[in-house]
């Protein structure tokens, strides 16, 4: 069977193994037709794809491999009234786009988890949580943070709407192989240093374009010691380093996480799956196109200062001087960033006041993220200068779990709002936005100009660091604040 699937015996990387197992056809010019095992669909990048299918009279080839969930546009305020009736979406364009998915999914035979279903959430939280995302599979979604699922050992990447339509119609994509980059992290992360800080550190080191054309495999003892949720956080941000996908070899931690999830294999299938998944490691002697080594002990809680995710400094650091950068175009970019961010070179990051706190997004809205934030907030109050602070669980199931643990009470007692699941203030598309000129400490993934709303100034941090900023009203070193984080 392995031979039949075209697998060679030379040492291969994890990426090559998954790639080889999915090649349907290879053209003379090297372009491959690659099979897609899992397709996640949300409301923003799919309407034009479904319209394309309709116009051409085409069907969805494999609805059984396709899962639709609304997330980007959904307001995170209550979705039902006291009588249990669905509340309308106020914004007419958002309502229309959400309605389109609700109609398109059943019309094309696709499983739909709707806005008021308890399993609803951000696609990248729902996929792993339901056991839809599995090791060794190819996973796509019309969203760049699909890289997230690589934390389970899946080859997962974002695609555009034309590709969404291509996958719906054919369950394949035309791709050329990527180069491979190993990011090996060794040692123990210090107290208060999380998977998010590690992700930011990696992007700082390789740059926002460093991974372009590559798939990153994260290896080393630090990665192995991460929980699945931490691995999802690290892999999620691969795209911020330019890499379309990240990969972490599945292991017993992965299998324990997946076992018993609703869409995960069961019985004899489970045993067969685990046997196969154990082969999904980079062989000794296999080579990467590039390797980056990181010592975990060197990583502090990190924070961004600018408008690119590569603009990272330790919380103990200061705003850099644009003249510190060797590259003239980076100097110019840094000047523009600082003007937008309203910061001066040499300012201590810990002196930067924030008015808004966002804890959520596909990067940091899983239960461990909420526990880390709650550990800092327990018994404390948000600072008077913090005007708006919201906690947005990644899914309805995360929300239930958090409430069962009493985390919602901790947040509310501290003066933070406890919301319904969705993408929320990560992207300035739904009602959750940071006001112009105001600053946020945000657990999301992008500090781009206008990302959290026009004129919004974003500082990316971990959940524990966002909680610390909520308490002090400024960017703060969580290690000085204590708590269990």
């Amino acid at each position, binding site marked *: *069977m392995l031979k039949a*699937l075209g697998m060679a015996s030379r040492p291969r990387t994890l990426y090559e193994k998954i790639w080889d*197992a999915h090649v*349907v*056809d290879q053209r003379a*010019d090297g*372009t491959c*037709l690659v*099979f897609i*095992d899992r397709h996640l669909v949300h409301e*923003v*990048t799919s*309407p*034009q794809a479904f*319209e394309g299918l309709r116009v051409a009279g*085409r069907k969805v080839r494999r609805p*059984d*491999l*396709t*899962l639709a969930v609304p997330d980007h546009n959904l307001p995170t305020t209550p979705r039902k009234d006291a009588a249990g009736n669905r509340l309308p979406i106020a914004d007419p364009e958002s309502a*229309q*786009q959400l309605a*389109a998915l609700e109609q398109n999914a059943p019309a094309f035979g696709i499983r739909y988890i709707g806005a008021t279903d308890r399993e609803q959430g951000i696609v990248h939280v729902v996929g792993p949580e*339901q*056991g839809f995302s*599995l090791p*060794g*599979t190819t996973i796509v979604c*019309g*969203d*760049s943070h699909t890289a997230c699922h690589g934390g389970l050992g899946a080859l997962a990447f*974002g*695609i*555009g*709407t*034309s590709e969404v339509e*291509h996958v719906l*119609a*054919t369950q394949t994509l035309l791709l*050329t192989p990527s180069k491979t980059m190993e990011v090996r992290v060794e040692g123990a992360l210090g107290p208060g240093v999380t998977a998010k800080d590690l992700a930011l550190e990696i992007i700082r080191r390789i740059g*926002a*374009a460093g991974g*372009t*054309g590559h798939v990153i495999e994260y290896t080393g003892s630090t990665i192995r010691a991460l929980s699945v949720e931490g691995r999802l956080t690290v892999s999620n941000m691969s795209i*911020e380093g*330019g890499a*379309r996908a990240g990969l972490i070899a599945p292991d017993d931690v992965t299998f324990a996480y997946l076992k018993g999830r609703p*869409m995960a294999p069961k019985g004899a*299938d*489970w045993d067969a*799956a685990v046997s*196969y998944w154990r082969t999904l490691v980079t062989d000794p002697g296999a080579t990467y196109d590039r390797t980056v080594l990181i010592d975990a002990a060197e990583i502090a809680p990190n924070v961004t200062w600018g408008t690119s995710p590569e603009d990272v400094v330790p919380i103990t650091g200061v705003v850099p001087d644009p003249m510190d950068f060797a590259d003239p175009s*980076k100097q110019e*970019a840094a000047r523009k960033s600082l003007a937008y961010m309203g910061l001066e070179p040499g300012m201590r990051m810990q002196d930067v006041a924030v008015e808004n706190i966002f804890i959520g997004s596909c990067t940091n809205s899983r239960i461990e993220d909420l526990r880390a934030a709650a550990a800092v907030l327990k018994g404390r109050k948000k600072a008077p200068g913090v005007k708006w602070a919201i906690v947005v669980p990644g899914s309805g199931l995360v929300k239930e779990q958090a409430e069962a643990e009493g985390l919602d009470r901790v947040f509310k007692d501290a003066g933070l709002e406890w919301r319904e699941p969705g993408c929320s203030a990560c992207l*300035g*598309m739904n009602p959750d936005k940071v006001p112009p000129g105001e600053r946020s400490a945000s657990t999301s993934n992008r500090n*781009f*100009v*206008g*990302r959290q709303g026009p004129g919004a100034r974003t500082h990316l941090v971990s959940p524990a660091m966002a909680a610390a900023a909520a308490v002090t009203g400024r960017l703060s070193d969580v290690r000085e604040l204590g708590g269990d984080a």
Partner: protein
Amino acid sequence: MDPVNHVEGKAYPFGRKNVDTDVIIPAHWLKTISRIGLGRGAFEALRAEPGNLFDDPAYAGSPILIAGDNFGCGSSREHAAWALGDMGIKAVIAPSFSDIFSGNAFKNGILTVVLPQEAIDRLMEVAKTDEIHVDLENQTVTTPFQDRFSFEIDPFRKQCLMGGLDEIGMTMAMDGQISNYEQRAAAAWPWQAGGANA
């Protein structure tokens, strides 16, 4: 998709690095269920600045955009390619592009031309006064001043662009190979089929 070969005309000398797709088209424009009309939202934040490049009459309707490293990074939104196309852009020239953006541009008949920074610097100068010519068939970018820069492009993409081919139709014609693969996969990994139906 209409066939693409020559793109000739004025070019926006933009040149900025790490231009993300949130800058090209902010998220609030993504609520549309149509592909058309997004040009109005293109570079919205930049266009709010007086005297900005994109509203400068000297460059109105330019079919070429010259950008810096890592153009189109960030979100996978194809709306970025639709917005550029809607404002009349048919080719973007930069030292590098994000992988997702260059794929999206290609699917919409927008050429992404990769040239070294020195060539970009030169084209930025030329664009201030003169037209630029992108020739896909010969894989060159030329100016009226005898500048001639060659670029690489994936042969399959070139063929699709020049032929205006329907990629989905081409893949659907490979139904036999896809079905064969599905049978092999069902035998090797029986737990994967029906994943969404549980």
